[in-house]
């Protein structure tokens, strides 16, 4: 009991420490600067819905953050900052999270922000009748109980240590209950939140215009109006930035990054992302069942060359099973540096049948240079004598094949990306490698299933002590890294370019950026 109380004390202390930090330092520091009347941001896609619970595209979630605000904000270093919730406490058994909500906050339509609003938000997010694509991220939440007007308790089905950062997800951004009452499902077109901005205009396929919420509870944004200009073509977005038509260019063309960086009028930021790109290797069917063959495939591919020659350095070779930016990452001692001779040796030891043709599948246009990366991997494997047949699919066709159960799956070697939405290794290590997520239940399409690994990961979810949890995640990482259910390719970088007159942009590794407190020099 005492041990549990100590643990509880530590968790409480962490939560309170988090609560003590107010807004991320960069935005507040810039708030004294000159006001910007309009900031124009060129983006590639239009929003389909501005209901945060229906959204899966990071960019549109980013927009939702500005309209709704979040319960917490996870900064690029992974630290949680209070937003609409000021702090949380975890019960000793890890099954109840008590959230303290900010007082005196109103939604932009004048409705009070309170426990009822948060309860309704969770109820909708958990309602199986509603389309909530990321529901799995809060699947451990059984119910949200109102304690008082500004306190709610989240009751969990099982302990889930990374729930804190999960509460920073756009998925649980509170929506005005009055707006839900008024618009119903159409709230997706009429977003009402408690964030720093209000949707003023939405011209389909052309632009979205946000204006400052003058009743925002936080520090007044320096940018009065944000215009999101929809420019599907990368080169045109870049041209618009160069010609001064827009201030910010979201994801410019990687091949032009060198030129953009050389331009003194443009700032390019490219922090490491959470998304890992990998070649899944079926662990239960086909030629890749043998661990030695999977390791051989890893040695056969020159990941550094792929990053440099194909991706223009907009990625970094993986040196652990998760991105270095997440909690739980550890650089692995063993590396799979390019070594075709070792790969051939391992294939020989495994009695690899070189007469067999291995099926490789890849999407096209989903990830940066996905088809080209797959072609490079195909060439590397062919160089060690493995016959590879590569097939390319558009994304909808490709996803249909990912969730097929073992008996039906055709996947042997396949390219995929996985980007945790919070800076925690759980979504990667649990969400890809436990038996529980083997298709059709999940997207662990490599069919990696190991009882020992599962036990470590389950323990990590129960463990509230960060250091002990870190140790468990490292242990799991080492195991899966050695077993090679993937060819560990690379971690993407999130690239954003903007006028160098802009100062104070906050860019996060979850592919988000917060322009509300920028200043123009």
């Amino acid at each position: 009991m005492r041990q549990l109380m100590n643990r509880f004390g530590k968790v409480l202390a962490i939560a309170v420490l988090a609560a003590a930090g107010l807004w991320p330092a960069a935005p507040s520091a810039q708030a004294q600067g000159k006001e910007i009347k309009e900031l124009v941001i060129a983006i590639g896609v239009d929003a389909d819905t501005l209901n945060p619970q229906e959204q899966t595209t990071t960019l549109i979630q980013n927009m939702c953050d500005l309209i709704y605000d979040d319960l917490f904000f996870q900064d690029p270093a992974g630290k949680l900052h209070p937003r609409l919730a000021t702090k949380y406490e975890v019960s000793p058994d890890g099954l109840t999270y008590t959230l303290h909500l900010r007082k005196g906050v109103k939604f932009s339509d004048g409705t009070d922000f309170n426990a009822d609003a948060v309860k309704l938000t969770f109820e909708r997010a958990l309602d199986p009748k509603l389309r909530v694509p990321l529901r799995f991220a809060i699947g451990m939440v059984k119910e949200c109980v109102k304690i008082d007007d500004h306190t709610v308790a989240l009751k969990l089905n099982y302990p889930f240590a990374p729930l804190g950062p999960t509460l920073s997800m756009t998925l649980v951004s509170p929506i005005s209950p009055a707006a839900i009452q008024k618009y119903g499902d159409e709230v997706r077109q009429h977003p009402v939140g408690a964030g720093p901005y209000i949707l003023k205009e939405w011209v389909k396929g052309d632009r979205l215009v946000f204006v400052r919420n003058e009743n925002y509870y936080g520090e007044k944004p320096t940018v009065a109006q944000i215009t999101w200009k929809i420019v599907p073509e990368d080169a045109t977005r870049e041209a618009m930035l160069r010609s001064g038509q827009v201030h910010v260019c979201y994801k410019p063309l990687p091949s032009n990054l060198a030129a953009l960086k050389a331009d003194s009028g443009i700032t390019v930021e490219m922090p490491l992302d959470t998304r890992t790109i990998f070649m899944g290797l079926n662990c239960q069917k086909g030629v890749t069942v043998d661990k030695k063959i999977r390791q051989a495939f890893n040695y056969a591919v020159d990941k550094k060359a792929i990053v440099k020659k194909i991706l223009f350095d907009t990625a970094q070779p993986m040196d652990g099973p998760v991105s270095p930016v997440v909690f739980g990452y550890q650089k692995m001692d063993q590396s799979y540096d390019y070594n075709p001779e070792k790969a051939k040796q391992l294939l020989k030891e495994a009695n690899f049948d070189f007469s067999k043709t291995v099926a490789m599948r890849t999407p096209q246009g989903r990830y940066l240079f996905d088809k080209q990366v797959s072609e490079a991997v195909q060439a590397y494997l062919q160089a060690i004598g493995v016959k590879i047949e590569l097939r390319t699919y558009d994304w909808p066709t490709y996803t249909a094949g990912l969730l097929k159960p073992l008996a039906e799956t055709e996947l042997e070697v396949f390219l995929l990306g996985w980007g945790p939405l919070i800076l925690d290794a759980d979504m990667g290590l649990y969400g890809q490698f436990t038996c529980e997520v083997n298709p059709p239940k999940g997207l662990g399409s490599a069919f990696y299933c190991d009882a020992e690994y599962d036990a470590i990961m389950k323990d990590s979810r129960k463990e509230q002590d960060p250091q002990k949890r870190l140790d468990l995640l490292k242990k799991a990482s080492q195991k899966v890294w050695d077993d090679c259910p993937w060819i560990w390719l690379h971690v993407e970088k999130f690239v954003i370019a903007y006028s160098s007159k802009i100062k104070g942009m906050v860019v996060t590794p979850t592919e988000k950026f917060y322009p509300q407190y920028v200043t123009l020099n």
Partner: protein
Amino acid sequence: MLNYVIKRLFSMIPVLVGISILLFFMLRMLPGDPAQVLAGQMASPEEIETIRKQLGLDRPVYEQYLSYLGRLVRLDLGRSARTQNPVIEEIWARLPNTALLAVVAIGLACLFGIPAGVISAVRPYTWVDYAVTMGALFGISMPVFWLGLMLVVVFAVVLRWLPAGGTGSWQHVVLPSVTLASFVVAFIARMTRSTMLETLSLDYISTARSKGLKEEVVVIKHALKNALIPIVTVVGLQFGLLLGGAVLTETVFAWPGIGRLIVDSILARDYPVIQGTILIFGLLYILVNLAVDILYVVIDPRIRYE
């Protein structure tokens, strides 16, 4: 004439029903599950099934079609699976942009293409003719995507005379319409040249010249007017195609038109939007063809529709 138009308008109905059948069943033959695309990469099989039911995709295909046809009769194109907006709203938000671009592009193409073709035909096998032919070849061969980007680099980035993309003013229309027109102008110039050459060699032109008419009158009033029928046909066909949306041009110039909507919907397997936009496109194409047929009567009074 009025009877003819009414008859043609009624004949549209079986054509549109035919389009709807072909489209509906061909879309269902495409690999990829719209419910799964909508549910997201990490949705459970139960969640995917729920969405499939909500979209009505769990019912037999013929039943889905009959229900779609029933709604179509009531002029209801359904709702977008992706945005849940009425399809007609999605189309209506973009159609005026596409129409504007198509009208300006076709206008520019006629303005430059027809005179170029006429001059070329009047001075065959001279440097003027070769220049026009080369220009036309250049226009047809040049990838629209490349030309668009080059125009952006020159006029938006280097000279800063025009915006690189977007909508909002007449300046925004210039680069995309010039890009689109470059292809069509070449077509029209080539067609005008060949039909004019043919017409100018006819006996009645020699008669007109021998009557002592001015060369301008012979060329414009006697030759061009009679050569117009095939030119109008080409212009009509090109205009119809442009109304269907010019995906590449719209993409390069961030022009919010119908072309991008179709592509985005196909990538998301958004059946209602794909069906709705293609159907509207079919309707517009038929109407443009009807307009061209009516124009024939204006150009050539000998043509009579019974």
